[in-house]
């Protein structure tokens, strides 16, 4: 990765899963690519003026508008007959699931040839681990703290891939930094789609999830192996790809290694919540046929 299109020297936390995701995405997209990013961890850690980690052209405007900015890039390239250039958005879950949701819906609806990549670390990590609509059920964040009256985030994670499919987006996939071959293949496939694509990449956050240093890939793998994160692929609304799980592990294996779930193993009602989370994983197995 020495000659990665995402140069070293960025300011991401040691042990962060996000830069791995970015390197893999850019590696698959190649140098003939323009990237738009919203405000967030990626943006602040990769472009402290006058430095930049980006070896492809990159543009940042605001928090909620990257999909609109990319739409403008794409139509300008169409006007200049440079349609061979890949246009990507790479943004976090806060801008994707919440504040930029309307702009993404617009981008999907208009049918731009843009691949929207969400690196999903399941909360507003850049501002200090506040809850987003991507935060999983009963995870602790700084705005869904645990306490006498609370077991963390009261709501399940928003199903963004389903929302993308509902827009008749030609290509939708989930991916993981623990499965780089799969991730790269999905990015390449998205770029040949005749229209928008949405790829949601699970990218564990060492600060917000609170796990052992050097464990980001392992966390990402556990999310897949517990069936909490199904790796799936839709083409024209049809489920065409499912990454099978060979040895399904109980959700406790995932939850117990992360500080954001620690309370579930101590607090009253925690065991019930773990059972509920296990039921969510089991439902994924059923829904997507994760196990042969």
């Amino acid at each position, binding site marked *: 990765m020495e000659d990665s299109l995402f140069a070293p020297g960025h300011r991401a936390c040691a042990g962060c899963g996000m830069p791995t995701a970015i390197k893999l995405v850019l590696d698959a997209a190649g140098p003939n690519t323009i990237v*738009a990013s919203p405000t967030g961890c990626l943006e602040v850690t990769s*472009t402290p003026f006058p430095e930049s980690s*980006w070896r492809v*052209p990159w543009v940042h405007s*605001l928090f909620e508008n990257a*999909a609109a900015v990319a*739409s*403008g890039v794409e139509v300008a390239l169409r006007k*200049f007959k440079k349609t061979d250039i890949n246009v990507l958005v790479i943004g976090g879950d806060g801008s994707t699931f919440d504040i930029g949701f*309307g702009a993404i819906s617009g981008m999907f609806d208009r049918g731009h040839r843009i691949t929207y990549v969400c690196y999903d670390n399941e909360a507003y990590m850049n501002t200090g681990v506040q809850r987003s609509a991507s935060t999983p059920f009963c995870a602790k964040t700084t705005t869904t703290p645990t306490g006498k009256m609370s077991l963390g985030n009261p709501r399940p994670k928003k199903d963004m891939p389903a929302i993308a499919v509902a827009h008749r987006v030609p290509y939708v996939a989930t991916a993981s930094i623990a499965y780089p071959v799969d991730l790269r293949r999905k990015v390449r496939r998205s770029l040949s789609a005749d229209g928008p694509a949405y790829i949601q990449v699970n990218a564990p956050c060492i600060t917000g999830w609170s796990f052992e240093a050097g464990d980001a890939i392992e966390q990402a793998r556990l999310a897949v192996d517990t069936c909490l994160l199904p790796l799936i692929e839709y083409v024209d609304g049809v489920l065409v790809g499912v990454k099978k799980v060979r040895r399904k592990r109980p959700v406790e294996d995932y939850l117990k290694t992360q500080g954001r779930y620690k309370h579930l193993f101590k607090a009253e009602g925690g065991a019930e919540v773990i059972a509920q989370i296990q039921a969510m994983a089991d439902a994924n197995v059923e829904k997507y046929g994760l196990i042969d």
Partner: protein
Amino acid sequence: MMKVVEGSYGIADAVRCCSPDVISVYPITPQTHIVEHLSEFVANGMLDCEYINVESEHSSLSSLVGASAAGARTYTSTTSQGLALMFEVLFNVSGMRLPIVMTTVNRALSAPLSIWNDQQDTMAAREAGWIQIYAENVQEAMDLTPQLFKISEDPEVLTPSMVCMDGFILTHVYEPVKFLDIEKVKEFLPPYRPEYVLDPKDPKTFGAFADPSWFTEFRYQQYQAMVKAAKKIEKVSKEFEEVFGRGYGGLIDTYSMDDAEVALVTMGSVVGTAKEAIDTLRSEGVKVGLVKIRSYRPFPEEELKRALQDASVIATVEKDLSIGYESALLTDLKGAFYNSPIRTPIVGFAAGLGGRDIGVKQIRKIVEKASRVKETGIEAELEIFDVKQECL
């Protein structure tokens, strides 16, 4: 040849002559006719550009950030709530030095909801780092369009522009205008060739984040660019007059100011009404004149001092309020004079709010009130004009 058209059609045609690469719009009254006509031009092949219908004003301006950074000449139009929704993008565009041009139709801001004209919307955005020029009539708004593309795209300026025009009063009026000749416009306004664009052959980072050791320098350069824009507005205005035979003055224009004792200072479509009122008043022996502000940002401080130095009383007439302290033009004008030897009394009239008519009768009343200041001194610096006391 003069043709009678609706103002919005005139604007759309002027935009067409500027050959924008990308237009991105969201409909809002009373801007809609402008963007409808533009979409017709694209649909019937009269305008070769990418026209995108986006899901909000926030996204219309945001998409132009991407298009402009990719090297496109870009245009949008909005008004009122739409401009308010764009607010953070306005600062972002100017900070990124993207020369986007926008016809900003002036309309009141809710609440109460009003679709009618005043200038609260653009006045609230006056610190956003955009050039703001206010048109008196449809022809001026049309003619400003290529001028502002030229000024904004100047490498020494690289600052976005608003052509401000009063909603309904100008957008929906049918009046005779001269259409621009597209070939002449192409000569006047050469294609946009920015030095830095999003290009995989020469990757650049746009919109980096600046810590406190850099931020001030970015703002300083923007401030200096706006100072340069003032000179360019004068220059381009003259160039336009040479090519097209129509001139409007530079940053300001004056009317009947020789020996004027009462000087009105105003902007936008009310200028035309004020001129008519002044003609009548002059015939009655009232020494009244008018300074029309064309460029509100950059603010024509020196020009205003020169034009107003001999008046005995100055009255601003503006369609906005800064709730909590006066109104924008009144405050800015007083600020311009404070460190100068000019000690002429200045009073302000906030009028025409939410579309209430300012006719000749109202202007006469304002002149009458301003004249009294010579004898009585200033009683109230700002008067919210034409308040129906019985409704309160």
